[in-house]
């Protein structure tokens, strides 16, 4: 028993390094996607203290809109543009109709409101586009679909071109976002709002504009994630479950930290794959990916209650 837990998995890893690399690569790709979703959460949380549960459904909704528009005969790249317009309208509507009347309410009420948005978007998406599975328009968008086979250590390592593209695009997106937050006026306004609402308001930063902007950025991230994940697994409402995966990422990284979201996402993506392949499947009957990330994050939180990179919680009476 102890041998199965502490020795055998590592022996397997050393004996088949190519398989280990394959596992690590797949973990890295899903980790990057988790990190992207978590980034959407962090941006909204920092600027408005809203724990946005609707991030997951925004991914699905963006992907559905894209596929739906293409099915109506709109050219592929034009439908990407139109989807962005839809996400912008969504951001404005959410800010106007939901957030503005609820300003200053307790956190949990705003959290519930985002769950309300989730349900509404599920219903709306199904009403307009139907509930069945759809195929992402991968080729039409010019995303390569082949694969490259490498042979490290005399073994076999298959890299899907799609995954490589995802990694590159996601990295570029994250870099662009960081540049935006650090070097533009709007980006600095977002960070100022995250630090202190009152102070930001008093120097003339408009809360409404920033909220719309932040939700729109979350919408863009949702669209990219939706395309990437949709190309891997098809577009359906089952995609919503990946939003749950972003939650332990946030816990691990800390709710306010952009670095935390990225590091946490990669860590969870890789570790859960490793655990599933080397411990979960042989010992626990598989499918451990549903809970591993949460338990890992819970254990980390017991030692660091604010997450790895979160702001230190200081409480005063």
């Amino acid at each position, binding site marked *: 028993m102890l041998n199965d837990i502490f020795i055998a998995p590592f022996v397997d890893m050393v004996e088949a390094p190519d398989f280990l690399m394959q596992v690590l690569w797949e973990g890295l790709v899903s980790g990057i996607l988790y990190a992207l979703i978590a980034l959407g959460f962090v941006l909204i949380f920092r600027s408005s203290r809203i724990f946005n549960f609707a991030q997951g459904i925004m991914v699905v909704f963006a992907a559905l809109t894209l596929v739906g528009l293409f099915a109506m005969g709109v050219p592929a790249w034009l439908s990407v543009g139109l989807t962005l317009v839809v996400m912008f309208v969504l951001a404005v509507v959410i800010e106007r109709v939901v957030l503005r009347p609820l300003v200053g309410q307790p956190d*949990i009420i705003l959290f519930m409101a985002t769950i309300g948005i989730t349900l509404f978007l*599920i*219903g709306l998406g199904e*009403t307009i586009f139907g509930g069945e599975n759809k195929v992402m328009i991968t080729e039409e968008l010019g995303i390569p679909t082949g694969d490259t086979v490498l042979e490290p250590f005399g073994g076999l390592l298959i890299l899907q071109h799609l995954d490589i593209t995802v990694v590159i695009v996601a990295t570029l997106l994250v870099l662009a976002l960081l540049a935006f937050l650090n070097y533009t006026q709007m980006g600095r306004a977002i960070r100022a709002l995250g630090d202190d609402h009152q102070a930001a308001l008093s120097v003339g930063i408009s809360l409404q504009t920033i909220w719309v902007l932040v939700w729109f950025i979350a919408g863009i991230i949702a669209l990219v994630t939706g395309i990437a994940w949709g190309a891997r697994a098809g577009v359906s409402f089952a995609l919503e479950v990946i939003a749950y995966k972003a939650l*332990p990422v946030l816990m691990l990284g800390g709710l306010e930290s952009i670095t935390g979201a990225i590091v946490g996402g990669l860590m969870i993506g890789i570790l859960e794959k490793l655990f599933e392949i080397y411990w979960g499947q042989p010992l626990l009957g598989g499918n451990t990916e*549903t809970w591993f990330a949460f338990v890992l994050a819970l254990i980390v*939180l017991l030692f660091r209650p*604010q997450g790895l990179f979160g702001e230190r919680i200081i409480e005063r009476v």
Partner: protein
Amino acid sequence: MLYRTAGQFKTSYIADQALFPVRQDAFLLGIILIFGWVIFPMTASEFTVQTLLIPILIYALAAMGLNILTGFAGQLSLGTGAFMGVGAYACYKIITIFPELNPVIAILLSGFFSAGIGVAFGIPSLRIKGFYLAIATLAAQFFLAWLFEKWSWLYNYNASGAIQVPNSEAFGIFVMGPQAASITEYYIVLFVVTLLTVLCINLTRGNLGRTWKATRDMDIAAELIGINLLKSKLTAFAVSSYIVGVAGALYVFMWKGAAEPNVFYIQLSFQVLFIAIIGGLGSIMGNYLGAILIVGLPVVLNVVAGTQVFEMSTGSAILLIVLIAVATFLFGVARNLWGMGAAIGFGAVTLIYGYAQLHGFRIESAMIEHINVMIIGALIIFFLIIEPHGLNQLWRLIREKLIIWPFPH
């Protein structure tokens, strides 16, 4: 008028702290109890008992359990579904191991198992707070849901992986399983729910309840005035999980009749959380109001929108108009223009739809399902906007205004 408090003098602190400081409250509760225990069972059809009365009571009970934890003790939890599952599986094991045990006792016992697990997952709450704790309870949710699937001892190694409710007898009649009458099940549910509600009301008014409220309002301050946080938080987890577990056992054994692990997924947790929040955090009655809304609404929408053929007779149209008039009046008393508008709008849409249906206008049933989800989402947002503190607060405002009616102040 209806709520005139003139002549009800309180001459001692005990009278002022009484359960019903206003006599009309006790009277109103009496009427509700008579409806619940006598009039509904006598008049309701099999369909109403199965789709409305039993689930409303069970969901209200689950929401009450969650409300103890979230509303009274301030610990946000998203693991309710899994704790309901623990109650249901514990009850299944108890019943299959001791078949001659009285099922009602088995249901009440099964709550202790979920209480134990609840305390175990409650321990991190001593260090982790707020949203971090909410996500931590998701660990319980996903881990337990996975366990229900993989640990075959829990469902006695049967091939389907689901738990089936056996027929079992008590007091000479079938009380659970396919052969039990709905009305028997209704009375058992009502008995358990009434019992636990009385328990909850008194717990939350007493010493323990005040400790919880102090912990909720600010745990460091509570600790400074000498409250043992460990005891306060863990008792909240224990009591809450006990009630949620019993609700889970009732959910499977008195209502569904069988359950697969996917019943206890996160959607159930959210549904219960909706009820607790829409009803009002930190209230007992709110859970019932919330359950009536969240459980009743989809049923009403389905019936109205015509999966069954809905022919609006003159009688039901008049009844609808009267109900809307009452709702509009109550909202008007509370000076809630949004609420008035919504009541009138909802009524108008229903009437127009009913009229259109008479002339052969129909929507496909799949479309109705989707629109239902959308309407429920929109209504959640709507209720949060008109009254963020829940239906209970809305009722409290209406009651305050009724006491001084017709004077504005």
